[in-house]
């Protein structure tokens, strides 16, 4: 079994591991680092459950091998909180607006929403739907997710699509 040495910073911590080149980034995060917050849904780049930030950009971590991310920085759902037990605005909004049910697509969904808000601080409903269109949810029908993002970006209004 041939292995390669990788150094990847995840949620601010540098990890150094010896892994098979064929190990995808999502499997690396989950199995090598025990960060099981990122989920596997399809392993062929469609469902978005595996979304993470790679050098601050949302990507599908099932479509990249860990070795390719050598020297890069990854943020997973575990790195979104502002501090221990301190939910970020979008995480809090998801809870307030009931933007999840089984929670399986949620980490990827949060990553997509987090990225949207960074680039578009006050998105409208269409922009939210576009931003999450690469993340499939089977529980929520998306409505409360859209509501959550609108709420997170304008908590003063009772924002609803």
């Amino acid at each position, binding site marked *: 079994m041939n292995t390669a040495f990788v150094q990847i910073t995840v949620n601010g911590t540098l990890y150094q591991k010896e892994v098979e*080149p064929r190990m995808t980034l999502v499997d690396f995060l989950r199995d090598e680092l025990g960060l099981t917050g990122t989920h596997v849904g399809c392993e062929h*780049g469609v469902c*978005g459950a595996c979304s993470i930030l790679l050098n601050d950009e949302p990507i599908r971590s099932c*479509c990249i091998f860990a070795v390719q991310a050598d020297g890069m920085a990854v943020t997973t759902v575990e790195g979104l909180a502002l501090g221990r037990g301190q939910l970020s605005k979008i995480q809090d909004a998801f809870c307030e607006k009931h933007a999840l049910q089984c929670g399986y697509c949620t980490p990827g969904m949060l990553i997509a929403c987090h990225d949207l808000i960074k680039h578009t601080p006050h998105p409208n409903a269409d922009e939210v739907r576009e931003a999450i269109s690469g993340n499939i949810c089977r529980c929520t029908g998306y409505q409360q997710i859209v509501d959550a993002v609108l709420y997170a970006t304008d908590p003063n209004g009772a924002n609803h699509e």
Partner: protein
Amino acid sequence: MKAAAFEYVRADNLEHALGILDEAGAEAKLIAGGQSLVPMMAMRFARPSLLVDINRLEELKKISQDEQTIRIGACVRQRDIEFDHSLNQTAPLLKKALSWVGHSQTRNRGTIGGSLVYADPSAELPLASLILGASMHLQSDAGGLREVEAANFFLGPMFTAVSETECLLAIDLPIWHGKRIGSAFTEVSMRKGDFAMASAACQLQINDDETLRRISFGVGGVNSVPTIFPQIAQKMIGKHLTPELAQEIALMVAKECDPGSDTHVSSRFRRSLAETLLARVMLEAVEDSMHNGVNK
């Protein structure tokens, strides 16, 4: 769905990459964005023994232009093309095509080179490159540099002129100069972001008297490769692109298409879609040209 085992090499520079390809031949595959390749490897449809990562080759990531030509490096991310201000001026069709390509997450990683080399018959960038008269720069150790026009680049479904030992370096797009240049890209897919059931695109230039000065158009997803129709386009020069003419051309084009069927789409439907979309997109391009009176 774990890929079959392979050796991994990160190319330090182009020379390094080409050297590996020269030695390993069919056993090696280049990986850039990986948005198509990695799923194929996960399903074990692709099983290279050696994966050569070219993501860090700076020489393949440049966008440059001169008076006549835009040159886009093969490893330029689709997202970077989408948001490149100058490209939006000089080659707006690219951005329009990209709005149909996958999702923002896939465009963050996917490269223009990857899309062209992967050559899905219904992919958007291959069709756009054909319409814009692109040419592709290829290089191998043994063969050196060569340039292949888009029309000779796409040879079949998932099959291009790129040989086993070659790397696509860059794509040249001739710049259209003048005013009243319009472009449009449209497709119909089952869901937004899916591969198109059929797609159509057009770039044109309108004279002051509203006749056609120049036009290039094509359809995707309805033949084994995206297809343009330069002879038909040539005959349209000097005419007014009316809805009637657009319908007539679209019908003519549809008759020349040989679409396949799959789970979702019958060939009959694809052909009809191509006709509908082509007529629409030509008129959209005319409409678009009205907003572009300025010399580029």
